[in-house]
């Protein structure tokens, strides 16, 4: 765990440095300027953090709501045209997102979704959903739906079947798919810029603009804020990435 945090040490030092020139090993002059700017009442950082969190969480939730039924259809059943559907689902991963987003931008303008939070969430679903669907499909490929039939026969209503049988079985996939969805949405730059149209400023947008301006201390502080939630998410879900509950490789537990 300590080793994992080591790369962040320079960032931490940068964020509190005032002067730090080669060949000094640590900054020669220190300053809280970057951090006090970050937490200043009228700074752009906190609203951007808020936007990023709301967008990433909404994208994650929606992609899982899509991923469960879509992954079930892909992993559990065989139907005509399945290969075509599989390719279509994968397409956004292969086609440059910018190409897709340009086309979508026109549609979004017509429906008033351009420059809105909802529009950004929708456009984030394009790169996110394929991963979630594929992860859920691999979970469902190892899933025996007869357990659901058995539960129903024992008296479980459809809602109860999902809660007590399906959900526990696919939970590892939901967690891992959710982690992917969160991280992809969280770091998305181009699509947010294009569809948000400068109205929806997320952390990556802010980060790039600070980096461009050459303010190293502020860029470092913002980078740390940017990395924080992703790390927390990863740690919280780590037990589903390895061992008995692993969603990848081992498949679900049912």
């Amino acid at each position, binding site marked *: 765990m300590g080793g994992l945090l080591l790369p962040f040490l320079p960032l931490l030092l940068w964020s509190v440095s005032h002067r730090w020139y080669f060949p000094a090993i640590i900054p020669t002059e220190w300053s809280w300027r970057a951090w006090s700017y970050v937490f200043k009442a009228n700074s752009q950082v906190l609203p951007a953090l808020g936007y990023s969190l709301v967008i990433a969480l909404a994208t994650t939730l929606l992609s899982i709501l899509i991923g469960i039924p879509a992954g079930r259809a892909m992993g559990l059943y065989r139907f005509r045209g399945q290969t075509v559907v599989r390719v279509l689902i994968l397409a956004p991963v292969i086609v440059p997102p910018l190409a897709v987003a340009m086309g979508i931008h026109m549609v979004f303008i017509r429906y008033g979704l351009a420059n809105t939070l909802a529009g950004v969430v929708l456009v984030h679903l394009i790169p996110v959903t394929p991963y979630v669907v594929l992860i859920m499909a691999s979970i469902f490929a190892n899933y025996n739906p007869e357990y659901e039939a058995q539960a*129903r*026969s024992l008296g*479980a209503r459809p809602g109860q079947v999902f809660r007590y049988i399906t959900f526990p079985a696919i939970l590892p996939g939901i967690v891992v798919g959710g982690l992917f969805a969160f991280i992809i949405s969280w770091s998305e730059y181009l699509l947010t810029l294009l569809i948000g149209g400068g109205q929806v400023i997320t952390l990556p947008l802010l980060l790039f603009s600070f980096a461009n301006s050459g303010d190293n201390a502020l860029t470092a502080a913002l980078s740390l804020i940017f990395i924080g939630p992703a790390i927390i998410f990863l740690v919280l879900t780590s037990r589903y990435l390895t061992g008995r509950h692993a969603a990848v490789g081992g498949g679900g*537990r049912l």
Partner: protein
Amino acid sequence: MTQVDLQRLTKIYPGGENPAVHHLSLTIPDGRVTALLGPSGCGKTTALKMVAGLIKPSAGDILFDGISVLGVPTEKREAVMAFQNHLLFPHMSVSENIGFGLKMRGVDRTAVRQRVADMLALVRLPGLEARRPYQLSGGQQQRVALARALIVEPKVLLLDEPLSNLDAHLRSEMRELILDVQQRFNLTTIFVTHDQEEAVVLADQIALLFEGQLQQYGPPQAFYDRPLSERVARFFGGVNFIPGHKRGEDIQTPLGLFQCPSAPLLDGAVLLTIRPENIQLDSHASGANGAYGRIKSSVYMGTHARFKILAEGNSPQPPVAIEVVTGAAGVNQFAVGQRVRLHLPSEKIWLVPAER
């Protein structure tokens, strides 16, 4: 206490060429054990799932005590099915598995715990509440699955191949348990099996299916004594089929003339059939309903002996292969190559239509 009526029950799977179950009509008596018997793929599980409400029939009706249950959803139908591979929920303990049905019905926790303990005692697994399914042996898993189905006190108990994954001695143990429990609760029980011996031992009534179609329905004895077709007879171990022509009470065969007043009212081309243990072997005697034959081979089987005999009549027709089972002493009495007299008692002879 529920009588189950199946009326021309039919299931055609999407994309399936032939119906998995075709016009199945059965009256399944209240409080008895009925077996759905047939080779793998003949539609037994499909039929059972339709009764459970897990598959919607393509046509036909299902009645419980005279009332159609097609509109009753699975979870309210009170026909509980225990699946073929026991399907214990892997993320739950033994007691959570057994208590599942009661929990879904909103029974409170202390009551569930008490009933689970009762059920574990009933299936002779006391003290295993906290185990996980993977920590149980195959026989224990099957018994937990039975307890899980019984705890909700279903009107109809549906068991899909309850003994198929068990080795021989566990089988007989489980068989006794099912009979014991069924009699205690007087539960209408339908169970599926591909093993005719299992059906005979467990069931009061057997419904034999081939390719989704009912072949014969009745008590086990009827399948040995009065099979309706050559296929049914063969499924129950029948081996002797002698082609013949029936006119009145006389059956003309290559082995001569036979008489059987008790046989069904067929006319024309028939197959005369008789179980190997019902043929009497003699070294000399003569009389009606007899034929001569030469012993081709014999097998000593401990409790009995089995002979293959080539029998022939007076007519110049090719001999007919006949199998005969005698007591164990028969092996000393009759030697391979010996010429013997076969006696086919008229009350043991049965006729089935000759199939073309």
